[in-house]
């Protein structure tokens, strides 16, 4: 239970005990501290030379969005042990939901805040829609069905152009505002940063609570031995459906935020690569460990959007002939693949293993005697 205490690095015993008892508060304070520290760090060399603070804050916002996606996917994969390969579809549905009700395309302009919830509901509905018929199936069939779903949603969004304006997507989406107090703009990244950080903390708190609840234990049981779980009285279909719906609704909510942040949704934003990148974050961070997964997402995002980009400029500056041709940003996709394969082969529990996963993948010290 001391994960949080350790993670925020509280060095003093009393502080740690306090946060162990009040975990939600601990998460909140921890996230807040980190979200203050990150922009500060970018003002010192070498980070200040890379891009402006505003650009950094914008990047952190995107990273946090990505991290929330990964945390949601982790509920499905890490907790319930269901391989969902079409996660981006729910993200897309959330985004398009908001685009529908808050853009010139339809002419409807509903306020942002209730739509945040609506995005979650839409995500959950589609999660149930996909999960209900398929969750009875074996796990690997589920993987392929979700893969297909993740493929179908962007195709549908692309082809149903009467409703979605096809490849162009829906632009000019309303930014959130707090009436009379604050209007979010494209030029000032700070309000969005604050919003995303708050949401991030909230989602993390919720996920931890679920993990420790009766439902969380149910997921553990299903992951370990589904038949035994059924025979312990667990309605496995419902429990899996709940995991699926929770994951999907988080993706839906995040989709709304993302749409409001970049003010445009296109089918192209929700391709298979997005699902895979979230999966890579989950696998890298350690399946089942919420904080680990969020960290994994940050690492991957910053690596690809800062380091690879820097590599591009670096090569350009030094004018190295062969390397000049290469767009290092393209390597991010190979990177996902390599992360998935290498981690599974060499460190399946992830870089920050969840306690339980460590037990699962660890050496089997079972004292089995021949039973029959």
């Amino acid at each position, binding site marked *: 239970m001391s994960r949080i205490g350790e993670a925020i690095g509280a060095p003093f015993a009393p502080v740690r005990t306090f946060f162990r008892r009040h975990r939600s508060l601990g998460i909140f304070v921890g996230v807040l501290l980190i979200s203050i520290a990150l922009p500060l760090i970018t003002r010192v060399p070498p980070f200040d030379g890379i891009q402006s603070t505003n650009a950094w804050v914008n990047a952190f916002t995107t990273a946090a969005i990505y991290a929330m996606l990964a945390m949601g996917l982790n509920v499905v994969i890490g907790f319930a042990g269901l391989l969902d390969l079409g996660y981006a579809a729910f993200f897309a549905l959330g985004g398009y939901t908001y685009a529908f009700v808050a853009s010139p395309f339809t002419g409807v302009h509903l306020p942002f805040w209730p739509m945040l919830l609506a995005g979650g509901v839409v995500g959950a509905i589609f999660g149930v829609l996909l999960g209900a018929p398929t969750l009875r199936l074996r796990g690997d069939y589920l993987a392929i069905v979700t893969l297909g779903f993740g493929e179908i949603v962007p195709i549908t969004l692309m082809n149903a152009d009467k409703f979605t304006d096809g490849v162009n997507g829906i632009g000019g989406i309303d930014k959130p505002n707090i009436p009379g107090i604050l209007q979010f703009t494209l030029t000032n990244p700070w309000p969005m940063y604050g919003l995303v950080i708050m949401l991030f903390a909230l989602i993390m708190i919720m996920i931890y609570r*679920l993990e420790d609840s009766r439902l969380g234990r149910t997921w553990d049981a299903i992951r370990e031995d589904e038949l*035994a779980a059924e025979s312990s009285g667990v309605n496995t279909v419902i429990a899996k459906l709940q995991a699926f719906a929770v994951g999907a609704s988080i993706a839906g909510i995040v989709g709304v935020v993302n749409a409001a942040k970049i003010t445009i949704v296109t089918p192209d934003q929700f391709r298979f690569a997005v699902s895979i990148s979230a999966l890579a974050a989950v696998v890298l961070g350690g399946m089942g460990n919420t904080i680990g997964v969020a960290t994994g997402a940050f690492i991957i995002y910053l690596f690809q959007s800062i380091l690879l980009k820097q590599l591009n400029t670096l090569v350009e500056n030094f004018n190295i002939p062969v390397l000049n041709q290469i767009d290092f940003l393209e390597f991010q996709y190979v990177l996902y693949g390599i992360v998935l394969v290498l981690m599974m082969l060499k460190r399946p529990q992830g870089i920050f293993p969840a306690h339980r996963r460590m037990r699962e993948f660890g050496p089997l010290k079972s004292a089995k005697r021949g039973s029959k």
Partner: protein
Amino acid sequence: MSAAKGKPMLKARGVTRKFGGLVAVSNVDFEIPRGSISAIIGPNGAGKTTFFNVIAGIYAPTSGTIELDGKPLISPPTGAGREPILLLVPTIPFIGLAIYFLIAIGGDTGLVEGVASVSVALLGFVCALLLNIVRPAWYNRVIKRIGVTRPARPNDMVEAGLARTFQNIRLYKSLTTLENILIGMHVHMRSTFLGALFKSRQVREEEAAAEQRARELLAFVDLSGMENELAKNLPYGKQRLLEIARALASRPKLLLLDEPAAGMNPKETEEMTALIRRIRDELGITILLIEHDMRVVMGISDHITVLDHGEKIAEGLPKAIRTNPKVIEAYLGRGAAAGH
């Protein structure tokens, strides 16, 4: 406990289960008297475990019915072809609503109206799907009218008061002993999704009480002090005990034990026998066990049923079974397969 003394705890009628061409259980009639310790014996591959799995709701029977405590719970599934109707019919009102909505706004299907009405229809479909999965009692009654019956699932059987262990121990290996038992308590916990999210007081109290009871159960099977041990790190004999404790956690009326003493040394076997007796005497739970160890079976059973090739070949008191020529033939006819 003695209120319904006369009625059997479990009643199986004409239970048959086939796997392809193989008849694993064949037309078995079977009753377990309330409060008894009954045993099923038979040579390897006789169909004992399969019979258990049918009772526990894991395999649907090919034919036959099973009643637990007077409630008919298991019978072969029927009307599977009509299942798609179950999804479509409840959706129709919603589709109707969507159409009405479209007409009401003058048939001018603009963008927003189109999307909205599709959403309404979709919502209806989701409700139908959910109903079909959650299946509350009234829903079951309704679908029975149109000829769709589905046998109870394992979790339904647990809810109805049945618990079991497995021949080849199936614990949650990477969870602790305590967590294993907490999962066993699942059916009696009421905390909801929202309750967990907001950590309501009721949820916290329930968790504390559950943990308390889990510790008591561990003490009952003599595993005190091992609360935080991982299940897979327990020695084999203790894993069997833990599996029994997990089964007890659901407060069953009937406990099924599949070879509880398999692979145990004489001392462990004796302790296991004593535990089984205590479960019946102290907790008042009816017990049905499968066992190859004749000393265990003859020692504690009130009533023995013998299966061979899926068929019931004998039943009665231990003494009578021991001398039944059919039983002797079934065992000796198989040569070395007989006793272990």
